[in-house]
């Protein structure tokens, strides 16, 4: 959209065209970030699963055996090496961090921060009418919102599994035993510990989604108002062009 070619033109339409281009860029940025967030979220679950497999292998190959001598006798316990835990879960932690980053940046952009990335503006002579463009943008945002919401499934699963693993390991290292402690406590604690930290992230995602959709809805509503008023004032009250 070349709006700077003639400096004698009034600036208002240029402002509107620049704003339309920015709106287009925002939609593109939101869809792109939503997709990246989804990739990172599923990647987190995948990396977490691989981490667990790796940890099991390390446990079999390099067990750290601890012998405890007490009054009742000698007991031995084995655990995977501490460095193994770091190696196994570092990729999942990095992917989780990247997913959270996308969420936070996405919300900032949707609330008015400068949109990231570039968008190729369509050739004005072939650009779709605004009503079509906004309709398509709304559809893209709705699909993107669904993608963002579904991305919480792998995050929740990964968090729960991680919390369960942590609680179970904690109980084992403290030498607790019994079916209740082995199965029930880690599961319940895992659910609670896994879901609670995700709630603020889900809240951020909702703010991100809503901000983009509300902006488009407002623009669409105001454009329809402007169109009606334009037709009423300049094209005669009864005749739609």
């Amino acid at each position, binding site marked *: 959209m070349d709006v700077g070619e003639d400096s004698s033109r009034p600036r208002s339409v240029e402002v509107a065209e620049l704003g339309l281009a920015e709106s287009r860029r925002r939609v593109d940025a939101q869809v792109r970030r939503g997709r990246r967030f989804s990739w990172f979220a599923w990647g987190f679950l995948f990396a977490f699963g691989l981490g667990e497999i790796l940890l099991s292998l390390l446990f079999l190959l390099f067990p750290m055996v601890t012998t405890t001598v007490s009054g009742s006798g000698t007991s031995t316990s084995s655990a995977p090496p501490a460095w193994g835990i770091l190696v196994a879960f570092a990729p999942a932690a990095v992917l989780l961090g990247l997913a959270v980053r996308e969420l936070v940046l996405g919300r900032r952009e949707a609330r008015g921060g400068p949109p990231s990335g570039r968008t190729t503006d369509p050739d004005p002579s072939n650009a779709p009418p605004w009503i079509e463009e906004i309709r398509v943008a709304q559809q893209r945002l709705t699909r993107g919102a669904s993608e963002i919401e579904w991305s919480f499934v792998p995050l929740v699963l990964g968090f729960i599994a991680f919390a369960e693993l942590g609680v179970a390991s904690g109980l084992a290292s403290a030498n607790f035993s019994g079916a209740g402690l082995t199965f029930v406590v880690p599961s319940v604690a895992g659910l609670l510990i896994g879901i609670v930290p995700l709630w603020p992230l889900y809240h951020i995602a909702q703010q991100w989604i809503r*901000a983009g959709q509300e*902006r488009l809805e407002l623009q669409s509503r105001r454009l329809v108002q*402007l169109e009606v008023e334009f037709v009423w004032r300049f094209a005669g009250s009864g005749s739609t*062009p």
Partner: protein
Amino acid sequence: MIERPDLFVVARLLEALVDGPQLKTPLQQRAGLNYTVFQRYLDLVVRFGMVAPDPSGEGRFAVTPKGVDAHRFLSDGLAKIFAPPDPSRDGVRAGIAPATRPGTS
């Protein structure tokens, strides 16, 4: 027949004429429209009385006083709707900020 006129196209067409009468081809180029769309919208603005053939002849088109009003109405209205959001202000979560009026930016 255009069912719903694209306000950006109408505004661009009128804007291309506010500086003075134009022949069809330069007008089409300044409005940035392909020929089919240009012809449809030219018919539309002529029918609405916003643009008329220039009395001097020579196949030029000129904007009428009604067209000047329509151009101002559209350019102000569109600028208000699409002005880039100002992140420093509260209440711009929806991305709609006050219009940047000519001469104030």
